[in-house]
């Protein structure tokens, strides 16, 4: 089993590590870097719970190897809120719309919505809904998630 040096930035902090080639980014973030807000729901790329932002784009961390993230900037659910605890707009709207119950799928949904609404290009409602179809929530029946996405699209003027 080969070992590889990786350097990456997670939630604004630098991390240097030696990882096995086969270690997924999700396992690395959880078990090595300590970001347990990354939730592994299926480990085969369907449920979306493990989604993180890598260099500005939403990525399923179970389908990406840690070595592939070398040199990248990674954001997890832990890195969304401001340092003073003020929730990110996506977190705030998810809370207000009761878009979560057990909270297991929630970090992935947050990261997809944050990736699509936080950058220069704002996604419209159809794009958000289409992207959310890649996230499985077994609790809520998606009612609050849909309301939250609509509000985010409206807030971004799309």
């Amino acid at each position, binding site marked *: 089993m080969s070992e590889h040096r990786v350097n990456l930035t997670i939630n604004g902090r630098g991390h240097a590590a030696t990882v096995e080639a086969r270690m997924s980014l999700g396992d690395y973030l959880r078990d090595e870097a300590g970001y347990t807000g990354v*939730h592994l729901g299926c480990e085969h790329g369907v449920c979306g719970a493990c989604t993180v932002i890598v260099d500005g784009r939403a990525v399923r961390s179970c389908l990406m190897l840690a070595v592939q993230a070398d040199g990248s900037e990674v954001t997890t659910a832990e890195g969304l809120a401001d340092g003073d605890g003020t929730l990110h707009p996506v977190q705030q709207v998810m809370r207000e719309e009761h878009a979560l119950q*057990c*909270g297991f799928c929630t970090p992935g949904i947050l990261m997809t919505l944050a990736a699509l609404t936080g950058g220069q290009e704002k996604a419209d409602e159809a794009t958000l809904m289409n992207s959310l179809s890649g996230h499985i929530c077994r609790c809520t029946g998606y009612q609050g998630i849909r309301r939250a996405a609509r509000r985010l699209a409206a807030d971004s003027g799309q």
Partner: protein
Amino acid sequence: MNAQQLPQGLGAARYIGQRVLRKEDPRLLTGRGQFVDDISLPGMLHCAFARSAIARGNILNIDTSAARDMPGVHAVYTQADLAHFNAQMLSFFLLPPEVEMTPLASDRVCYVGEPLALVVADSRALAEDAASLIEVEYAELDPVVTLADARNGPPIHPGTSDNIAAEMGDEELDDDLAATLNGAAHLVTQKVVHQRISQAPMETRGVVASRDGNEELTLWITCQSPHMIARWVSQSLGLPQTAIRVIAKDVGGSFGLKNHPWKEEVSVILAALLFGRPLKWIEDRYEALTASNQCREAEMTLQAAFDAEGHLLASHGDYACNNGANPQGPDNNIAVHMFVWGAYKMPAYAFLTRGYYTNTNGLAAYRGPWAIESLIRETLLDRAARKIGIDPVEIRRRNLVTLKDQPSVSSMGIPREDITPAECMEKLLHHFDLAAFRKEQAAARAEGRYLGFGLATYIEPTGSAGSMPVMTGELAQIRIEPTGKVTATMSTHSQGHGTATTMAQIIADRLGVAYEDVTVFEGDSARGGFSPGAAGSRQGVIGGGAAISAADLLAAKVKTVAAHLLNASAETITIDGGTVHVTGAPEMSRSLGEIAAIAYGEPDRLPPGCESGLEVQHRYQPPPMTFTSAAHACVVEVDADTGFVKILRWISSEDCGTVINPAVVEGQISGGLAQAIGMVLLEEMPFDARGNPLSATFKDYLLPAISDIPEFEFVPANTPSQALGGMRGVGEGGAIIGPPTLVNAIADALIPFGELPEPLALPLTPTKLLSVIEGRDLAAHSAPAPVVVAAAAPATEPAPAAAAPAGEVRVDGAWDMVLKTPMGPQGMVVTFAVDGNAISGRFDSPEGSQDFIGGTLEVNRVRFDLKVEKPMKITLKYDLQFDGDSLSGKCKMGMFGSAKVSGTRKV
């Protein structure tokens, strides 16, 4: 939901009924939740299982040597290593199984995925690598996979004579019932074949077990109640001397799957006791789909007779469910029959109900485990309406029990005092213009678009307490801290339910403090007291009542203390916004913190005899059962070119009593409905003929996504229940009423093409619907063997007379007897005394002793009645045949039908 409607006596409410923000969300939204896989302990090692590759066979050899030799592997255990613990697998009712079951397979395997060996290694990856190196030699046997296999095939468990795990009811149809059914103006038969479902919570199963010395065991486990886990593990492992602490702060959904530990969790706990270092096992999704317990696979035939005007006359139900090899309690799902006509004016009902063992994953609970009763009844009613030529609304109006018809008792003995399905339906129809829809539907059909309207009504038993051993009341412990802040410890537990929020809303209202100043702790067996947690839509009803009672007791204490300190009478004291006021004397107001500081720190200033501090606890015991009622409707469009179903509208009119938090209530209904939509259109856990599971990933097992689920509309229909606070419970209903609502809409849409095929086999895939639309079986090339669901035949043979005994008949003396009850087999010792043809005797069981007299003996047949008070008043009519040192027969248990009895002479 109706936020305004509060029951009498709850008084002014600032928080109850409001969509307050959840207390759970700040940590869950910032990645700071604490799920079991987030626990990491010093020295902790990781586990993985080697599992059976075949469905049925004997184990010839397990070679673990290569796995043991792998670097990073610390131990490999098989059942031989764990056997000395004598761990006993138990049901939810804490009863042992009637077939042999060990944590790891010992000498035989009975389903694909059954755990055979456990590897302990430095990492999960290494443990998996090593598990794959374990070589198992089997002598494979032909598996029993389907219900048809189970009925006709060899018994899969040694020492049993057939595959029947549990059975009740009568095989022969009563003459009067048969005459009513066959002589009615309309006899409608509905058959349902329900597919197997995976509960599939987003968080899979998992446990971290830490042996802390010889007398302490700490478990972090994903579950539905830490208290239930502690009780189950203590009894299962026989550890009454061990202090067991179970922690489950956040749980990623459960839906019945995690009611109690199963083989894997027990194996990990035993391995941790053996190895002495903390061990973690987190199930991966492949294991979760192929090796976890599953649910719902069943077949049912329901016959219902109607008069010429569509009034119900009589009915018969024949039900069978697949228990798998090792169910979490042998189950014939008696609740199906208890509640199938519970909301309707049904004069007579009889049933036969069975659960069968097969070489598949075991049966575990899933949201509304008896839900097939609503599916089959409501789809039958729609078919009956079409046959009789009346509207689906009208057939329900003619048969539903209304408030005017109550109090009354159902034909199965269910007392109905305040159920409101008919009222929910009328409120729903006030909101939905059905006549306008029919016009729209006709116009659409003219354009080749197929719209359908589906309606369903139901009642759901909730908040059960006091009639089954683990279904208890709930405990609330509330204290006002010396700071004036409020801390509550509840026996409730959330797997997404938000009980820390709803209980805090109640406590804040009842104590007169700000919601923000109330913190609710749960999720740790070291706090609070026993409760089974989330099971049977009970926490809002019972936990809510406990929170009200305890808060009221605490408010009374505050008033007593404040009245004494302020030299006022207790009646003039009010608490509002965290401040204690004296009516008419605003200058006397004191903060709750000031009163609390004195209550804790200056006991001399308290009234004589008053206990210091501001702390109370109360365990609330609700009425034995509460009912939620609902009517749901939906509108669908079925695409005639593709067979795809699009849900256009869905309206819920639900009477779940007092609504503590509308967002939480709507969330529960919506989540249940999404699972219902999955069951009707998408989800399926099939097996091949060798018992191999065919849905191993989420690419095979299709869960509903946001694009499959419509927006749900909620019509207010709430009326308070008789439980304290008026809550009725809302956890399971969406999963019960959703399936018939959607199936009825699809059937309505396809009327131009004919009825849906019989039996109604879920899921209704595009292929099945296109087959209706095109009038040919598009699935024929890959269809499984047709399922034959036997309808009950009229009784023709007379009841057998006492047969001549083969051996000596000696009834006198003590017998070990087993009665197969709805809660599982129950053992007892019966001592008979014979005097000529008269029989008397005595029953002894762990629950107590009871004498009986007045029995009769004819040749070798003994009949007698036993009147019991618990769990309910019921007369048990025993009819036993004696043969040498064994006895067998039946016990007729009133409305529960008949149960099998077997026994042997006590030596």
